[in-house]
């Protein structure tokens, strides 16, 4: 088939206006498809996190602003079987509701951050962070979105932080958070939260049964000053994002609709191209081109248009996702929209599949057309 490449390329170029418009339409459809896919991937990453981490939250509370657990619960939880580490965390967010620009502060004992997270500082230093109470380390996505640089002082509500470091993480949703000293966040003016935290993060031994430990924790504090509700981190995050999950599930259909639209668009263009060239295809068949070669030529045109749109749309989506640091969050849990090799491959393979699906009918029509009738066309 490669021998026919000049013919294929020149044929597409002959109607370049139509070709470009179709490629652009396909690119837009693939761009939206990849964006929807990125949101879904982000949600999947959050909700499928392994069971080796538990989140202890105040029972019957949903927003971090209303969950207040005694900080010293960590001492009791630490002694339970199967528990490796307990980290008290104060959470502060500028918006508990679903929003595209959520800034979430995690107040954590400074010396424990490196123990519980795999952060790598791309700017700043750990010592600077540990030695300054009002400093924070900022995820790359937040830094990009809010244009934060090393040494920048910024404030959200009453929380005023100096950037001591910018980090990246293998868990991309972490890059939407700002980590500060626990006592600093507890002492934020107007909050008076000393002695209480929003939640405890419990890291379990590899052999521990997460459900059993969660039950033990909740049983322990059922009769205590504040009742707890303990779940694995994945379940906790899925529950926090419950409202968004429904929207994201719905957006799936938007992605599929885009793919359907793209199929129709390319199929229409290919059909038009075939109808324009009924005589040309008959001439080719007179010269000895078989029906299967004509079929393959038409299918190849459809695939070239589709994959062209796929490359442009997927590439644009990946660049936008990588450069924008976009995320959506609710109740201090954020879903990072980030590019991935899997998503890019899905986009490209999807565009190839669309090209084939869109081209089959026009290709069959071209291959089966009667030669004599075709030659009679004006």
């Amino acid at each position: 088939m490669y021998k026919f490449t000049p013919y294929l390329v020149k044929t597409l170029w002959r109607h370049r206006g139509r070709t470009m418009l179709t490629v652009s339409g396909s690119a837009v459809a693939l761009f939206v498809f990849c964006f929807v896919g990125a949101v879904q991937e982000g949600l999947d990453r959050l909700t499928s996190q392994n069971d080796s981490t538990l989140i202890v939250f105040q029972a019957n509370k949903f927003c971090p602003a209303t969950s207040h657990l005694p900080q010293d619960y960590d001492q009791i939880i630490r002694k339970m079987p199967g528990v490796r580490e307990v980290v008290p965390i104060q959470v502060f967010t500028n918006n508990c509701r679903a929003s595209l620009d959520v800034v979430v502060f995690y107040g954590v004992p400074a010396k424990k951050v490196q123990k519980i997270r795999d952060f790598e500082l791309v700017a700043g230093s750990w010592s600077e962070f540990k030695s300054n109470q009002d400093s924070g380390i900022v995820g790359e996505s937040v830094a990009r979105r809010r244009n934060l640089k090393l040494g920048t002082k910024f404030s959200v509500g009453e929380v005023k932080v100096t950037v001591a470091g910018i980090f990246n993480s293998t868990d991309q949703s972490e890059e939407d958070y700002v980590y500060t000293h626990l006592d600093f966040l507890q002492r934020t003016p107007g909050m008076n939260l000393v002695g209480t935290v929003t939640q405890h993060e419990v890291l379990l031994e590899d052999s521990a049964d997460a459900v059993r430990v969660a039950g033990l924790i909740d049983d322990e504090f059922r009769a205590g000053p504040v009742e707890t509700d303990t779940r694995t981190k994945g379940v906790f995050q899925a529950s926090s994002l419950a409202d968004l999950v429904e929207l994201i599930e719905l957006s799936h259909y938007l992605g599929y609709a885009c793919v359907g639209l793209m199929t129709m668009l390319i199929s229409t263009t290919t059909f038009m191209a075939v109808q324009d060239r009924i005589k040309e295809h008959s001439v080719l068949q007179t010269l000895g081109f078989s029906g299967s070669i004509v079929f393959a030529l038409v299918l190849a045109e459809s695939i070239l248009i589709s994959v062209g749109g796929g490359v442009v749309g997927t590439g644009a989506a990946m660049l936008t996702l990588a450069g924008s640091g976009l995320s959506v969050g609710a109740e201090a849990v954020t879903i990072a929209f980030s590019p991935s090799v899997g998503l890019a491959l899905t986009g490209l393979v999807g565009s190839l599949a669309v090209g084939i699906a869109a081209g089959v009918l026009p290709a069959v029509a071209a291959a089966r057309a009667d030669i004599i009738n075709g030659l009679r066309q004006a």
Partner: protein
Amino acid sequence: MLIEIRNLTKSFQKGDETITPLRDVSLDIDAGEFVSLMGPSGTGKSTLLNQIAGIDKPNFGTITVNGTEITTISRSRLAKWRAANVGYIFQTHNLIPVLTAYENVELPLLLLPFNRAERRRRVQIALEAVELVDRASHYPRQLSGGQEQRVGIARAIVTDPKVVVADEPTGDLDSATSAHILDLLQRLNSDLGTTLLMVTHDAEAAAIAGRQLRLDDGRLIDDTQQKQSLITTAEGTANV
């Protein structure tokens, strides 16, 4: 015998009417012959040409070209057979507009097992035969009608086919250009030994062929033999 046609009948439906342009036609054509086929419009000249070229199938009868009975083979095998054995010259040239003259001539060779160098050599020879080497990189829109037809002829002979069929090759051309094209066809036949079957309306064009056939009411009449027998009869009368 290169082409053997036996009892060929072709009919088709046009509304309620059944049209039979070819009725029990039989014909033999030797290798290297130049045959012209004349007749009024709608008498089935092009239909017969298309049967021989393997792009249309008869209702009855057989066509054997170089030992292959083409009326019974499948559509895909027929396409392969056409690529190797038939050159087709169209009335309206039918060049592919997005391809250069060189690429148009090369097109049938892409279907045959030739490497790039061999393709280049054959295209060069074909373009030299029609005296268009200097127009190889031109697109059809940059060529005159006569030049386009010469490219069409080069495309038809480039695979060195067993038979070249030409459907009104001068029908779209002015008289001067027509004469040039007819001269070219005659040279292809005499110099290269190409077997040619040409459909034409034009009696002068038909006259350049070594053998002239006429289709009348679906039946084939060999004018050359009639002329021959008239001459023989006249000579016999004179001798008496």
